[in-house]
């Protein structure tokens, strides 16, 4: 029974990871990509960690996985913030559709 729950949680986690990756590859500009990565991947990682903790069944493993997730959350938050800040200084969002990175690069 626990195995089944863990499997379902794992699959849902994989779905979110996949969605985040597709978003990063397919979305038009850096802001949309960050949006996809930061949200979907953190949730996906949490679900995968939860499923692994369920499969292992020890409190120690569960706490270690939680720590790993929190560290990944912290790192991705700060790096996404820095990337967004850097992009905003160079190519601010216009509010009229995606920022065209290539044409902005070539204008410089």
């Amino acid at each position: 029974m626990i195995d089944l729950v863990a499997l379902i949680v794992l699959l849902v986690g994989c779905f979110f990871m996949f969605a985040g990756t597709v978003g990063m590859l397919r979305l038009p500009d850096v802001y949309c990509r960050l949006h996809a990565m930061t949200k979907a991947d953190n949730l996906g990682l949490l679900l995968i960690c939860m499923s692994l903790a369920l499969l292992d069944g020890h409190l120690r493993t569960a706490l270690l996985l939680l720590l790993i997730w929190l560290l990944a959350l912290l790192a991705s938050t700060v790096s996404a913030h820095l990337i967004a800040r850097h992009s905003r200084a160079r190519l601010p969002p216009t509010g009229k559709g995606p920022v065209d990175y290539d044409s902005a690069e070539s204008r410089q």
Partner: protein
Amino acid sequence: MTAALVVDILLGLILVGLAAQVAIGKHLFRAIVFYVAFGLAMALIWARLGAPDLALADAAIGAGLTGALMMVAFRRLVEIDPKQSQAQPRATRGSALAVVIAVLAAAMVATIGLTALSLERQPGEAGLQVLATLPETGLRNPITGVLLAFRGFDTLIEMVVLLTAFVGSRVITTRTRLSVTTISGFELPLVRTLVAVILPLAVLIGMHLLWIGSDQPGGAFQAGSVLAGSGVLLLLTGTLLPASRSRALVRLALVAGVAALCLLVLAPLLQGDAPMAYLGRGSLLFAETAMMVSIAVTLTLLFAGSPSLQAGRS
């Protein structure tokens, strides 16, 4: 075909694909990013092969620190020659000779591989001897046993290589004024919080890896690279800054690993033993601590591109 085999084959294909991207990628920066991904894939493969020591070292040094070193080198390269940021370094024009050489090389590798597969597997004599003698050393991690008790000389040479690499980089960069390594936005409270959380944890993990190295996967190389990683973080956030004047303490840290290993080689002579005779676990912990300090300081200074460090903003 089992699921594990499918995963292994996939990992192998990913590794080859990433290696190809690094080698033939048109853009230098892309190649660096692919190299970091290559290091991570390599670490995964070591873990799958049951070599957690190598996986740890590859993740920390191969992916993390080498990646950071290449990124900072790229940034400085672009400062010297802005064209490099868009450069397409190699004009890859296919020549008939290259195809012939590639096919012959592939045939040779395939022949060697197939021959190796068809041979009956021999037990590794050296490995078996290590495992049989390991209890006498009081260690429980065979990797540490090989690195320090059985083949300590190799490790001494490795530390000398690291020191030589640092001295070489100093010779090259001593006349150039390298740019500062801080990132934009390092003054933000969010970044300060990251440092405040990550740094104590990194030091804790480094010490843990050093301490458990005798019995479990870990050791001086892994611990040193984790500490060097936090050194890079401190440089990026401006808490440490490169200093142009060398200091005695830093120089001492740079040679500590080589010096400690030399001591381990010579100390048995005092007792009338042969050089490099095994002195027990305590001596190894001493040598590993010195090596960890040397590795951490050398790698951090390589990133800084300076002979020393100074405190930045508090």
